[in-house]
């Protein structure tokens, strides 16, 4: 294993594979992986810096996983900890699955960014600060009583102080920019410096500058100069002694691009539309963190995508239902609060038995909660949030690129089984990015869709069922198949209004069986590790990366641990019960207080160990390793979960 950045500090004996002497006698050290975080004020352009660095690393052939973390306010009070916006990227010459528990290199554009991010920097890690932003006033805003750069706070790190503000202004000085405009280029200077340190190509970002600012040539030039100035600063300065190289990862052959979760979901929807031959109709209402799906699809008129920005969340789901009745691929997306408003509409879609996709990009709740922070606490809302017996299918993507496949799979289920399907994404998956192997559309299986035509001499029965218990999707415009559907209970077969109790019981059961049958279509549930034994870890949704990384660490130390990831939350896979029965302990890590755990325990009558976190951040690998080790060593969880704390409290 390569030594981390932290072991290459100026005073330590540097290890690693030295690839020769760099300019200014700087050593180049090869790393297997590294984690970098850009942190600054929410107006400092840190999301852009992180996105560009990620993109460049992906194009350079690394595997990447990102964690953008920003406040809900567009401009929180400047210089305060509340206003800090961060973007963390973990990139590797091997497969990486999490944004990294700890940061190897931190760029802090002001004291508040330093204060909030320093605890995550590994001892000995590289710390780059804009020294121009450390005035007494800046320090006070961040809550520092003394200057952390001078009082020993950062003694254990490789501190590199750079006059980023002054040097940026210098770089753009003859372009006629105001000071404010010049300072907006600081992020490009910081990027340039980090690019130099990690030997990243500049071309992708130069192309980005041209594309984004090309219409404002002065701004484009200023950003270009700031980027180059930062890069050259790295080359010429005496204070940085090492460069780090993370070679390309070995990935399956193909053409790759970097993709963000919400974009992958939008493209997956467009692909599903093509594969099924149904025009895509997307109805949404602006809400964080789902709005980027709306924005992406709104650009795609040329692919026949019809996007409707509704007056509210209820109208969005209602319009989608209307479009589905008309034969379109109907989709609505929101986050928790909006989904709560849509639930009555989803109940109507269950009764109408029309295909519909409902995307919930989960965020920390309840109520408005923490709108930009991630959580997985809407599983039970998706399962049970409606009145009456109202089952729907539920799927969850495990990573940004997986959003593409999930969208296609969800629509395949929706039309085959004539049912609403939930996709439970979350803020972490939605905003994160990773390399995506671009599929050929021709290689993706078609999604068969059938709209019935009249059969001479046979009455049309809108609620007749096929072998999957799905009813026919007859659409307006078809002669002789005129029918009326609605929220009132249907008579089995004819679909006429019926208040008959026996019929209601039959219909409730039919709807439940129809959704249960979806599991018959699943591929076998994959279990990695021993086929039976001490501990099985079950993950779902965005926790996949953290859990898989933790499992790999546990395997590396010879632990008896198996791993299975649930893509389908409802209905659960038919082989899951048997899989669970093969292990002494089952551990379920979730970013909630134990919602999947509750379902598994209720359904399979077996205890599971809950590992829960609701801090608006994904699991650290280390947290999961510790939780698993505690179970393996004592048969119990050592760490107190929220659930335990609550139970103890009530007792």
């Amino acid at each position, binding site marked *: 294993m390569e030594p981390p950045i932290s072991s290459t500090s100026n005073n330590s004996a540097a290890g690693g594979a030295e690839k020769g002497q760099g300019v200014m006698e700087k050593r180049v050290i090869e790393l297997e992986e590294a984690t970098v975080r850009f942190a600054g004020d929410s107006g400092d352009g840190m999301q852009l810096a992180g996105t560009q660095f990620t993109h460049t690393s992906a194009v350079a052939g690394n595997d990447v996983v990102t964690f953008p973390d920003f406040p809900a306010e567009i401009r929180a009070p400047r210089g305060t900890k509340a206003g800090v916006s961060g973007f963390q990227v973990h990139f590797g010459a091997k497969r990486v699955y999490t944004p990294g528990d700890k940061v190897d290199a931190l760029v802090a554009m002001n004291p508040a960014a330093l204060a909030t991010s320093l605890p995550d920097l590994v001892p000995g890690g590289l710390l780059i600060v804009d020294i121009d932003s450390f005035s007494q006033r800046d320090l006070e805003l961040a809550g520092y009583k003394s200057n952390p750069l001078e009082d020993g706070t950062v003694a254990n790190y490789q501190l590199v102080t750079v006059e980023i503000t002054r040097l940026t202004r210098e770089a753009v000085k003859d372009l006629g920019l105001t000071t404010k405009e010049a300072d907006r280029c600081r992020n490009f200077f910081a990027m340039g410096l980090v690019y130099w340190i990690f030997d990243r190509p500049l071309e992708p970002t130069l192309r980005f500058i041209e594309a984004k600012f090309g219409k404002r040539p002065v701004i484009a030039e200023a950003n270009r100069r700031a980027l180059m100035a930062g890069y050259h600063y790295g080359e010429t300065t005496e204070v940085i002694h090492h460069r780090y190289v993370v070679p390309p990862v070995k990935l*399956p052959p193909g053409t790759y691009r970097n993709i963000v979760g919400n974009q992958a979901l939008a493209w997956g929807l467009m692909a599903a539309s093509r594969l099924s031959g149904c025009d895509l109709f997307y109805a949404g209402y602006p809400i964080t963190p789902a709005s980027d799906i709306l924005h992406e699809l709104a650009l795609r008129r040329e692919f026949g995508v019809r996007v409707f920005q509704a007056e509210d969340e209820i109208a969005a789901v209602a319009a989608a239902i209307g479009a589905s009745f008309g034969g379109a691929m109907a989709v609505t997306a929101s986050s928790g609060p909006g989904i709560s408003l849509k639930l009555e509409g989803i109940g109507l879609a269950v009764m109408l038995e029309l295909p519909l996709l409902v995307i919930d990009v989960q965020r920390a709740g309840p109520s408005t909660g923490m709108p930009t922070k991630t959580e997985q606490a809407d599983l039970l809302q998706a399962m049970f949030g409606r009145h009456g017996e109202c089952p729907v299918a539920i799927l969850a993507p495990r990573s940004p690129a997986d959003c593409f496949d999930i969208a296609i799979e969800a629509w395949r289920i929706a039309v085959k089984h004539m049912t609403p399907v939930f996709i439970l994404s979350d803020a972490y998956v939605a905003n994160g990015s990773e390399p995506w192997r*671009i599929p050929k559309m021709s290689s993706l299986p078609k999604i068969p869709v059938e709209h019935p035509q009249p059969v001479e001499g046979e009455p049309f029965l809108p609620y007749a069922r096929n072998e999957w218990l799905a009813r026919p999707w007859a659409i307006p415009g078809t002669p002789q198949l005129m029918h009326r559907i609605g929220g009132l209970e249907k008579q089995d077969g004819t679909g006429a209004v019926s208040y008959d109790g026996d019929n209601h019981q039959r219909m409730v059961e039919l709807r439940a069986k129809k959704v249960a049958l979806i599991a018959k279509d699943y591929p076998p549930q994959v279990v990695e590790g021993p086929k039976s034994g001490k501990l099985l870890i079950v993950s779902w949704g965005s926790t996949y990366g953290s859990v898989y990384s933790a499992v790999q660490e546990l395997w590396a130390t010879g632990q008896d641990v198996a791993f299975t990831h649930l893509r389908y939350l409802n209905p659960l896979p038919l082989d899951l019960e048997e899989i669970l029965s093969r292990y002494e302990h089952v551990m379920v890590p979730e970013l909630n207080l134990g919602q999947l755990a509750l379902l598994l325990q209720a359904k399979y009558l077996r205890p599971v160990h809950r590992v829960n976190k609701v801090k608006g951040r994904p699991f650290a690998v280390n947290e999961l390793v510790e939780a698993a080790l505690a179970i393996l060593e004592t048969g119990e969880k050592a760490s107190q979960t929220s659930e335990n704390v609550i139970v103890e409290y009530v007792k």
Partner: protein
Amino acid sequence: MSVDALIEAAKLTPNDYASGQEVRWCPGCGDYAILAQVKKTLANLGLPREKTVFISGIGCSSRFPYYVNTYGIHGIHGRAPAIATGLKSVRPDLHVWVITGDGDGLSIGGNHLIHVLRRNVDLTILLFNNRIYGLTKGQSSPTTPLGHPTKSNPFGTLEHPVNALSLAIGAEATFVARSIDVYQKHLGMVLERAAAHKGTSFVEIYQNCVVFYDGAWEYATDRQVKEDHVLELEHGKPMLFGKNRNKGIRFRGCVPEIVELGDGVTEADIAVHDEKAADPTVAYVLSRMRYPDFPEPIGVFRAVEHPTYDGLLNEQVAKAIAARGEPRSLDDLFHEGDTWEVPEDGAPSR
């Protein structure tokens, strides 16, 4: 429409639009008369049944789709305009009707009504106004008069009622009309006009609930007095009313007043109705004229042409596709921007 469909449509009678489902409104309900006129209108216009969709919310009026032999959705409370907007957005070829009531459309669904009107989706909206919640048995609705006792306000309704047409005009409606359930001929005329309008047509229909608010519109339906209480608007015609058509509406600036012909007042002094006025001010003033201070206008208040939402949406889609010449494939889109190749041997290249 194919020739066959045209011939088939031409042959249809009002009865062909009956679904065969037993109609379950109370005996004497005003809804029967409206259903009859709608079926007649469909037959008169020759709208093909398979191309026609009725969408409703919840309430007595919202049972309507079950009784017409077209496609239909009996939706959820208040949401019919939104359901219809989604359908019409993807299927501009369909004739989509929305059936709603004073509770469904003006209370729980008020927001959707405002926005469907503002968007001018090509729909025909019929709002059955009976000034009461009937299906839930007699609570106040947004159009119940102030002080009128109901089950939810036994000591008199405390709220000022909403004026459906003022609301519609304020929401930029392009077609606004009013009729009355028992005015069969007038209702048929208004429905035909509404169905033919390109854009959202909003029709308020005074409808009598025989059980929970019998006589709510008696002043407008009682043979003895109705001519004095109702003003039939006709485009290009003076606003005359009264048994002997000797009374009219004169405007002093924006303020209407009732005048009697004679004594120096001639027809030339009477305002002439212009439903096509680009400015909605006069239509709004007419909508403010209420019994007992004024005769209540019925007929078409406003009928102007504006681009429709569904038209604009599908035009944007068509333009975007045409702009490319040949359709761009999703493969092209996916490869836009920076990509990199990982060859078979696994050694990546930039």
